[in-house]
């Protein structure tokens, strides 16, 4: 049944009536996602584009049985929105908001520890199980249902990888953007754990970038898991200068640590294939699938 979201998922949107919330909730619904509620404090009792709006997440969950929240709340209020999901026991909170203060992200992470709420993001494109459910801002049409999982710290680079797969006729089970900030909810390791246990995922594309040690941790986790599910990877920022924050708050080579070269070496050592060029993410995965007999040779064309 893929991971995180599927055709059964019931999605509430926090910040539904804002311009981003309204537009993307519409796009998700058009893709086939069940958008069951909006939460906008002060607008409870109204209907927005056919969707009932509630004042609180708890009310929305009680009335509609929502089990996923998609969050478009502006940065100063986003931490509160995530914590409200934790309080209401929403199993999955997907926070798209970019620009949340790092200290708030630390607070969210600590507060959600041990709760029943998994956070995806912040500053992420969301999650999609192609053909079933889209909870995020990714363009739906580039995806194709299939059996390869895609997980990435970047938004548009995920689209690029997905498009390379789809163009080769390789479909995806679930695609996850974990977000580009230094402190995030779901990590590479969390995502790998889900993919490795998922019977509908044959292989994984993992897209990292400079900064931090998330790729090294993913490599260590994969090596220790003993899994034979093939993983293809790419690490963005091989040519980034040290000490400069490359757009993402998390993408910085600091004190000589977090370089693409170190990350690629760690991934390779764990038996993960590493594409040298971002243009080769699709073909790297295709070759592994064909080698393992998981795809027809036509995906190499």
């Amino acid at each position, binding site marked *: 049944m893929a991971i995180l979201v599927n055709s059964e998922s019931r999605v509430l949107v926090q910040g539904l009536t804002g311009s981003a919330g309204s537009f993307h909730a519409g796009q998700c619904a058009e893709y086939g996602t069940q958008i069951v509620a909006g939460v906008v404090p002060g607008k409870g009792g109204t209907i927005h584009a056919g969707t009932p709006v509630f004042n609180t997440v708890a009310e929305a969950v009680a009335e509609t049985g929502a089990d996923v929240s998609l969050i478009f709340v502006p*940065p100063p209020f986003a931490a509160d929105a995530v914590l409200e999901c934790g309080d209401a026991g929403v199993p999955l909170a997907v926070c798209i908001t970019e620009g949340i203060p790092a200290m708030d992200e630390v607070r969210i992470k600590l507060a959600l520890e041990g709760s029943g709420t998994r956070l995806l993001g912040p500053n992420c494109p969301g999650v999609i199980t192609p053909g079933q459910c889209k909870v995020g801002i990714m363009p739906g049409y580039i995806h194709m249902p299939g059996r390869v999982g895609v997980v990435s710290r970047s938004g548009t680079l995920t689209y690029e990888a997905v498009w390379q797969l789809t163009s080769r006729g390789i479909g995806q089970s679930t695609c996850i953007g974990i977000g580009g900030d230094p402190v995030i909810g779901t990590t590479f390791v969390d995502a790998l754990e889900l993919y490795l246990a998922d019977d509908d995922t044959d292989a994984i594309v993992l897209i990292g970038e400079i900064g931090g040690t998330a790729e090294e941790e993913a490599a260590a986790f994969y090596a220790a898991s003993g899994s034979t599910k093939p993983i293809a990877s790419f690490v963005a920022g091989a040519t980034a200068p040290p000490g400069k924050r490359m757009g993402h708050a998390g993408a910085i080579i600091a004190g000589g640590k977090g370089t693409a070269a170190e990350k690629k070496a760690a991934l390779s050592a764990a038996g993960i294939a590493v594409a040298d060029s971002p243009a080769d993410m699709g073909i790297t995965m295709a070759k592994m699938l064909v080698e393992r007999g998981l795809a027809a040779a036509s995906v190499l064309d």
Partner: protein
Amino acid sequence: MKIHEYQAKQVLSAFGVATLENRVCRTPEEAEAAARELGGGTVVVKAQVHAGGRGKGGGVKLAHSPEEAREVADAILGMDLITHQTGPEGVKVRLVMVEQGCRIARELYAGIALDRASGMPVMMASSEGGVEIEEVAARDPDAILKEPFAPDVGLQAFQARRLAFRLGLEGKQVRGAAKMFQQLARAYVARDASLAEINPLVVTEDGDIIALDAKMDFDDNALYRQKDLAGMRDTSEEDPLEARASAADLAYIALDGDIGCMVNGAGLAMSTMDVIQHHGGMPANFLDVGGGATLERVTEAFTIILEDPKVKAILVNIFGGIMKCDVIADGVVAAARQIGLSVPLVVRLEGTNVERGREILAESGIELTVAGDMTDAASKVVAAAASRS
């Protein structure tokens, strides 16, 4: 956002961190007067630039009299200070800080950064003060003592004491240092810092604990609730194009190559730089126009790229998600018309509203090359740049 040492000391003083009395000066005359005001004895004259490593670069000097302070300030002001953080061209020194001298018994290090692995701020301390902490970390990671803490619980007194004892401090020094660690931790959280360093933190011959240097960087995402800090911004310390881009909410970083890049999304922007180098070219910049860019922002982004005299060709690589391809196309056309397109332009569009975007470009009559994918785009733009050098 970075600030100067004298500003960081102001911020930390408000939390009780002990610093020495100082004055900020723009001229040698001011430096002489400042040295006199500070008692006429020994002072330190320190270049105020955002880069670290100032001492080794000749930006920090002792002066034993007000007259000498003037001479030293005269030498430092206006110099191009070169440190390991500035690049070979250095940075122009516009300000110096004149500070009281003190008798140093020991130099230590204290700093706080966000530890991504634990997802918490971590207080670091080392008995090797006055040297780059990265050097210590590379040589002997165990020499750096660490205490993580939760923002709202704070660095506890026992953690602060533990650091002080492990640094080998004794008697009243333990209390003094522990107090300063807690003050630093409070400042870090309350002011939304991304980095706070006291290096060196000194123990004086009298056993006092003093922040002899201070460095603070702040989380740009939190400046909306730290409005007074925004007034400390010194844009003269920033690359002019980077400062302009930041004002337009664009993530732009100047690089050394000759291929201008405009991309949406940080990961794709980094990858675009990577693929250009993979094909033998060199990017002139990193530029992420962001997710929700307007026509004006795209136009400004394009203008900034064109104003960089190094740029010999431009690659626009857009994978539309939130960002719609037609908005990008409109911006490219508007900018090219406004300021004239003097270099070859390669455009690769994919994603939301891609058909409309391609139509806008085709109908504009602007001379450009359309690329199908990243490999195609990179090889075309590298060839275009090479043909002009």
